[in-house]
């Protein structure tokens, strides 16, 4: 199909680059520089969508972000993009677009039946029905959901790539129209670091469709000059196709840049910290409310001009303009210049003067003053309008044939970002719009978004805003003059929120306020009638402003009509808060590059490579990856773990404990400091001694645990759990810096510096010897719970004789860059003893056999050391964090949960972890829960399953039989036993 509505000359499209694309399956052509919308209009596509509720035919109304109707699905499969506005889609060769609504087709939609049921489907109808029975809503919902939604989500993962980038600047200018360009220029001349962003592919904003002159040259030449100047400035960065969508606290703004051409990244999130912000985003034209104001062919006047001047498309033949202000006349002038026919300009004002009307008149356009469009007629598109006196007699005076109606109800400044920044908006009776109030952050609004609509004024205000912003950040503005445009005479706007009620068929016709959500004038009236009087209630009840145009088209009309209905003024009704984003933003763009492998840092130990070589699956522990177990050929978790356990208890096992937190605590007051944080007596620890320590929250609950060693009178080496390492360090710093600054203590994390290799089992001593250990390893020389510096394989190491397995065991602390070497040497030295590497799972089993807790698995935030039977390590002679809380009534009450062990009566069943403990067999809910199983394993070396957990009054329950009920409903009879299953006397670890 030829582009019947394309003008032979003009526009900013590149006619030498014709493009083919498809819309709803039809192949059409356009030019580079087109938007999908301009190309569709050029091809005479009038019906491009269907409305949400009534399925009415809809056409393109606007030329930008405020478009409510032309919602399309672009691309397919993984490449699909739902809900794009045709007015914002740059035309590309092979572009595939389709309407998101309309079945079987956009031109013939069976859903149109809803239009007839209009009355029943009025605002909030669903609140009043579908409640006959409990499930009735859930059942009906399925059908309602099917009818809902716009586009289709893509299938599969996203082939596009995103990234985020941080930027800092002295002055951020949002919008590159006349005001924005002037602001950027003057700020740059003052020497400021300027970031200028605009959402269009080319700078200029309104100037792209402007016929005026600036500095005595055509606007487009002035524009080219400005662009060239700014591009040349080293301290200026210009971002095209970049939308500022969020204005957050402390002058942080989020921007998204589309269709990048510079490299593989398709969209980029800019995270901008600006010292000053100039908001120059322009304004949106208002629609007018009259019967059938949604017919395809009804357009915003400014959009008509934009399509003619920027895209060389005249979307029809016969035009009627309906306006309440001078700017509407521009459409008529452009239309006539484009060789179209103007039936009439319908102006609700009685007295019309001003330059634009005069020009239009001089070009022969007929002006009907004091007149309104009483209603539009047509089936699938506009055919004619009826006009009537503005002073409502209720009788239409005459009918005007037309295929396009250009309407202008005045302008709404784009106050969105100002509002997001926390600023209020104030109502200006003249020219009837909300403008930004005082900024609350370092920002200033300029130009149309500040309620200044004349080109001349916009240039001046932008220039001043740029200088101001630069000056406020300490730059001395240069003495450059603002650019000048000829002064223009324009008459005052006359607010017109609706037209007089008509009798006859038009009376029954719908008058749309929010097009996309089919919110009509009668919906607003219904809401008011039902007592929804606050604007937020009305919006939520009628869905006004909840479409994907985010109310840019309808909100102000809606508020004005609510004000009328309540007999209030518009400011009394108040404005609604604008929330980010300014326009919809892809999830992927907000996620940036931190997805997949980069989702979150992965921390690896120096032994990771060896573990990979040896086929270990890994367990995620916080940010760390830890070897879970080391399966041999054909082994599953259980068999591998049994083998690892047996080998360790029988001879020797080796494991990577490098993820444990390690903190150096030194200084004259190190001892005092630790006394206050740990429950046991630190002073009793002589140099070279190790001790197991527990740290409580101030609420008395166990927070972290680990072994600490005294390396010197003023130096301790404290270990923490893997997950707790970071918290414990900042917890220590917190107390040190905020409560006890007088203490002379320094904390240094050694987690990264030292790697820990644990050797456990009766032969661990032999392995150390085989590694050429240079210290006496005999029990009396190097007893349990002590530490020594030593040399292994001629490397300096620190040995700890401590045991988390209950066996004779050592922990080798070695410099991280030598850990891999040390580990491989240990494997070699241990070969003779069948040394067996084991992972976290076996470590869990071995410690469970000994009844040692794992903080976070066996404890939650409600367990005290007393509950765990750790009274032996709670000093009576000092105060420590959390001690006072242990004296609270609930912490001393009898019957608290206590740490116990469990044996399955059948000695076969391994109880599922998380099982709850109950008494008796009749399980009538709610069943009193006595406790739960927190750890449960099959113990290979004991030959039966063992479990640990917390049980009400557990200490006194030893010997009792209980029922363990798991998440699957499985029941296991268990006997309560002491929480130590293996070597209760602890002889082995002292060996």
């Amino acid at each position, binding site marked *: 199909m030829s582009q019947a509505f394309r003008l032979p000359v003009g526009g900013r499209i590149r006619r030498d680059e014709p493009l083919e694309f498809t819309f709803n399956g039809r192949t059409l052509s356009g030019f580079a520089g087109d938007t999908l919308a301009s190309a569709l209009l050029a091809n005479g596509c009038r019906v491009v969508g269907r409305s949400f509720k009534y399925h009415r035919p809809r056409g393109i109304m606007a030329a930008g972000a405020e478009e409510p109707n032309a919602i399309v699905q672009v691309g397919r499969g993984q490449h699909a993009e739902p809900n794009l506005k045709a007015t914002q889609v740059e035309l590309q060769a092979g572009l595939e677009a389709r309407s998101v609504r309309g079945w079987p087709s956009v031109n013939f939609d069976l859903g149109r039946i809803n239009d007839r049921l209009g009355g029943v489907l009025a605002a909030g109808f669903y609140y009043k029905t579908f409640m006959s029975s409990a499930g009735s809503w859930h059942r009906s919902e399925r059908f309602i959901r099917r009818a809902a939604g716009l586009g289709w989500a893509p299938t599969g993962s996203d082939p596009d790539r995103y990234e985020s980038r941080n930027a800092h600047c002295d002055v951020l200018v949002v919008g590159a129209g006349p005001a924005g360009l002037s602001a950027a220029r003057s700020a740059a001349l003052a020497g400021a670091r300027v970031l200028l962003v605009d959402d269009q592919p080319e700078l200029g904003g309104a100037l792209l469709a402007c016929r005026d002159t600036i500095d005595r040259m055509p606007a487009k030449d002035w524009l080219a000059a400005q662009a060239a100047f700014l591009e040349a400035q080293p301290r200026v960065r210009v971002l095209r196709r970049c939308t500022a969508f969020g204005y957050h606290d402390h002058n942080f703004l989020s921007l998204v840049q589309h269709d990048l051409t510079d490299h593989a990244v398709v969209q980029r999130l800019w*995270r901008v*910290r600006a010292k000053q912000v100039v908001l120059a985003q322009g304004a949106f034209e208002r629609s007018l409310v009259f019967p059938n104001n949604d017919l395809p062919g009804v357009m915003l006047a400014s959009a008509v001009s934009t399509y003619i001047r920027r895209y060389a498309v005249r979307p029809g033949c016969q035009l009627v303009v309906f306006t309440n202000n001078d700017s509407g006349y521009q459409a008529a002038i452009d239309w006539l210049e484009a060789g179209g026919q103007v039936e009439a300009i319908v102006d609700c004002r009685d007295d019309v003067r001003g330059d634009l009307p005069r020009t239009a008149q001089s070009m022969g356009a007929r002006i009907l003053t004091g007149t309104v469009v009483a209603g539009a007629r047509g089936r699938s598109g506009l055919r004619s309008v009826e006009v009537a006196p503005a002073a409502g007699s209720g009788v239409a005076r005459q009918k005007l044939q037309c295929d396009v109606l250009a309407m202008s109800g005045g302008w709404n400044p784009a106050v969105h970002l100002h509002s997001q920044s926390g600023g209020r908006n104030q109502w200006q009776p003249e020219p009837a719009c909300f403008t930004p109030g005082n900024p609350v952050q370092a920002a200033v609004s300029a130009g149309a978004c500040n309620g200044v609509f004349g080109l001349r004024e916009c240039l001046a205000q932008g220039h001043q805003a740029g200088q101001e912003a630069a000056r406020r950040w300490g730059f001395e503005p240069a003495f450059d003059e603002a650019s000048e445009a000829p002064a223009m005479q324009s008459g005052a706007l006359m607010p017109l929120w609706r037209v007089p009620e008509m009798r006859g068929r038009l009376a029954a016709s719908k008058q749309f306020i929010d097009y996309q959500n089919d919110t009509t004038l009668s919906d607003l009236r219904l809401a008011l009638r039902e007592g929804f009087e606050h604007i937020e209630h009305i919006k939520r009840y009628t869905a006004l402003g909840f479409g994907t145009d985010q109310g840019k088209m309808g909100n102000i009309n809606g508020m004005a009509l609510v004000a009328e209905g309540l007999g209030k003024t518009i400011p009394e009704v108040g404005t609604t808060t604008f929330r980010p984003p300014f326009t919809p933003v892809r999830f992927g763009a907000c996620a940036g590059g931190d997805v997949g492998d980069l989702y979150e840092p992965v921390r690896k130990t120096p032994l990771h490579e060896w573990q990979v070589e040896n086929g270990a699956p890994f367990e995620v522990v916080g940010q760390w990856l830890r070897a879970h177990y080391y399966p041999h050929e054909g082994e599953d978790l259980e068999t591998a773990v049994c083998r690892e356990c047996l080998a360790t208890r029988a001879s020797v096992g080796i494991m990577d404990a490098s993820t444990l937190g390690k903190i150096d605590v030194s200084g004259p007051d190190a001892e005092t400091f630790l006394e206050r944080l740990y429950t046991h007596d630190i002073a009793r620890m002589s140099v070279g001694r190790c001790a197991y320590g527990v740290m409580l929250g*101030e609420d008395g609950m166990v927070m972290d645990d680990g072994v600490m060693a005294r390396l010197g009178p003023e130096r301790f080496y404290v270990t923490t759990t893997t997950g707790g390492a970071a918290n414990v360090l900042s917890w220590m710093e*917190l107390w040190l*810096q*905020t*409560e006890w600054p007088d203490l002379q203590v320094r904390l240094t994390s050694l987690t990264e510096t030292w790697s820990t290799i644990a050797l456990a089992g009766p032969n661990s001593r032999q392995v150390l010897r085989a590694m050429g250990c240079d210290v006496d390893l005999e029990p009396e020389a190097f007893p349990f719970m002590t530490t020594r510096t030593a040399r292994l394989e001629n490397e300096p190491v620190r040995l700890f004789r401590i045991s988390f397995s209950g066996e004779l065991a050592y922990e080798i602390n070695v410099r991280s860059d030598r850990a891999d070497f040390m580990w491989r040497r240990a494997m070699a030295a241990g070969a003779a003893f069948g040394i067996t590497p084991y992972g976290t799972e076996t470590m869990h089993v071995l410690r469970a056999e000994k009844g040692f807790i794992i903080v976070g698995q066996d404890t939650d935030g409600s367990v005290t050391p007393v509950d765990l039977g750790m009274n032996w390590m709670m000093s009576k002679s000092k105060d420590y964090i959390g001690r*006072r809380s242990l004296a609270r009534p609930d912490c001393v009450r009898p019957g608290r949960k206590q740490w116990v062990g469990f044996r399955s009566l059948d000695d076969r069943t391994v109880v599922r972890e998380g099982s709850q403990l109950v008494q008796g067999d009749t399980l009538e809910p709610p069943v009193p829960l006595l406790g739960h199983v927190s750890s449960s394993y099959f113990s290979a070396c004991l030959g039966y399953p063992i479990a640990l957990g917390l049980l009400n009054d557990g200490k006194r329950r030893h010997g009792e039989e209980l029922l363990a009920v798991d998440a699957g409903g499985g029941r296991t009879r268990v006997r309560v036993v002491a929480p130590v299953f293996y070597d209760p006397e602890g002889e082995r670890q002292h060996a």
Partner: protein
Amino acid sequence: MLLIECPWCGPRDESEFAYGGEADISRPIDPDALSDAEWADYLFMRSNRKGENREIWNHQHGCRRWFVVERDTVSYAIRATFPMDGEGRSP
């Protein structure tokens, strides 16, 4: 996203800091002398001010210092930041 002036490192993005809650809560000298209610007041009760608030932050990923921030909990505007013991300085 807040921009917080670390007294030592200068203005940094919120993501480098950890929030520590209400400032000026000091641990009782003799906890045993307190009733359970008094202890609970220290432990749990908070002013949770709407408006001007004194709070502590930790420059966790910077110099690891804890410091005091005077911030409005409605506008989120930061009036000043102080070292735990020292003089204020405005952003």
